[in-house]
């Protein structure tokens, strides 16, 4: 599976966005640091962040289409996917893409198949400069700390780890030179969290709605049980006949 080679529009990114066929994309930002006068090249590997509290999973209606493994990987099981696109609405990072070919959602799997047999994800394995590391979250935090210390020594006072708490932390983390301003990195969310609208939709409305439906039916049932049917009485029919005769005979 490979995305078609696109056209050069004067930026390094190609393809220009994540697609159903391409799960990871290097995003390039040229940023002029006003303090130092340096032009900085802020490169970020965009793709699924594997949130600990995944918005896609929260929004998904199809059981088993989105799963979260105990190692933290959030995976889409296309076999169970119905293509509704709710994961796109749930995701705070704008990651899932729906394929027009089979109407199923795709995103980075963190090579769950490789990880399951003890191998590192392909991106980490193939990165020639070891800019991508793979390991347990605790080990990666330790490793990140070395890198952060190193960056701070080199003058990046605000270097830090991107592990946003709003989504319970992520299982893909970034070491950023400017961790105080993640949005510099091609619009990386500074405080990502599941949209309150999605929380309302898939949190509150679900129980309240179903309880409301059940209560409406129950109220009807108990009204019937206590009041009985509202029958037309013989007097009503008699009154109707009288009324008609009165009108037609005058």
């Amino acid at each position, binding site marked *: 599976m490979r995305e078609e080679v696109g056209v050069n529009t004067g930026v390094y990114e190609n393809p220009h966005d994540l697609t159903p066929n391409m799960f990871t994309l290097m995003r390039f930002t040229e940023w002029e640091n006003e303090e130092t006068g340096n032009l900085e090249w802020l490169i970020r590997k965009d793709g699924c962040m594997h949130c600990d509290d995944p918005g896609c999973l929260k929004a998904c209606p199809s059981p088993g289409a989105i799963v979260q493994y105990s190692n933290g990987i959030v995976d889409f099981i296309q076999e169970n996917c119905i293509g509704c696109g709710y994961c796109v609405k749930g995701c705070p990072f704008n990651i899932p893409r729906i394929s027009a070919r089979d109407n199923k959602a795709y995103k980075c799997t963190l090579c769950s198949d490789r990880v399951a047999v003890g191998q590192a994800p392909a991106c980490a394995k193939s990165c020639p400069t070891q800019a991508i590391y793979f390991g347990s979250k605790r080990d990666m935090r330790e490793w990140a700390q070395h890198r952060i210390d190193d960056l701070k020594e080199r003058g990046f006072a605000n270097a830090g780890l991107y592990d946003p708490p709003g989504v319970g932390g992520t299982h893909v983390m970034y070491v950023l030179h400017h961790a105080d301003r993640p949005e510099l990195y091609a619009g990386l969310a500074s405080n990502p969290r599941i949209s309150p609208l999605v929380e309302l939709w898939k949190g509150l409305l679900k129980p309240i709605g179903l309880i409301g*439906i059940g209560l409406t039916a129950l109220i009807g049932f108990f009204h019937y049980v206590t009041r009985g049917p509202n029958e037309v009485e013989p007097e*009503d029919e*008699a009154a109707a006949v009288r009324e008609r005769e009165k009108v037609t005979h005058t």
Partner: protein
Amino acid sequence: MSHDPNIYDRYTPGARVNHWANAFIMIGLALSGLSLFHPGLFFLSGIFGGGQWTRIIHPWLGVAGIFTFLGLFIRFVRFNFWTRDDSRWMASVNHVLAGREDKVPESGKYNAGQKVVFWLLSILIVLLLTSGLALWDSMFGQYTTIDQKRLAAVVHAFAALALIMTVITHIYAAIWVRGTIRGMTRGSVTGGWAWRHHRKWFRQEVAHGAEHDAPKPPQQARPAA
């Protein structure tokens, strides 16, 4: 239709077909929509041939439902304008629920409760249509932003739940008030039913019938010359 003079026509065959087409579509929409609303209800998607089919069918059912509902709206809107009597009826709705309609103002073709159902359905269906288009990603996905789709999802779910509750109330009322369902199945109701529940409408029908049945006044038989 019937020769029994104490039977009154309430719904034409066209209105009945329109109503039941709309009803079946709404049931299909509710079942498919609920299956997409809650993972616990996802099994309902089996009725429609699985999740993918449910996702495909639901919006098309919605399109069909818009037309059937529009038909009902056009047929019945003129009987559903709110009057001062309707407000008085609503204020003493507890008498109605107790089966004492003699204590509230006489109703026309529809009572205030039915009018509320009519307008609730109309408003909710407009909300469902607009939010539904924003959620129809395979057709119109590119016309809305993700944030608009999120809002649409909340509006759609809220309106759908309110609609289902309204329809349950509508169905219960038809079951509770005996003699009502035949109006929508056979098209007619008894005089006693009309007298008891829709006396103003009954009086109109009787007056109307009297006009028709009355012997033709002689001036109508006047020679053309």
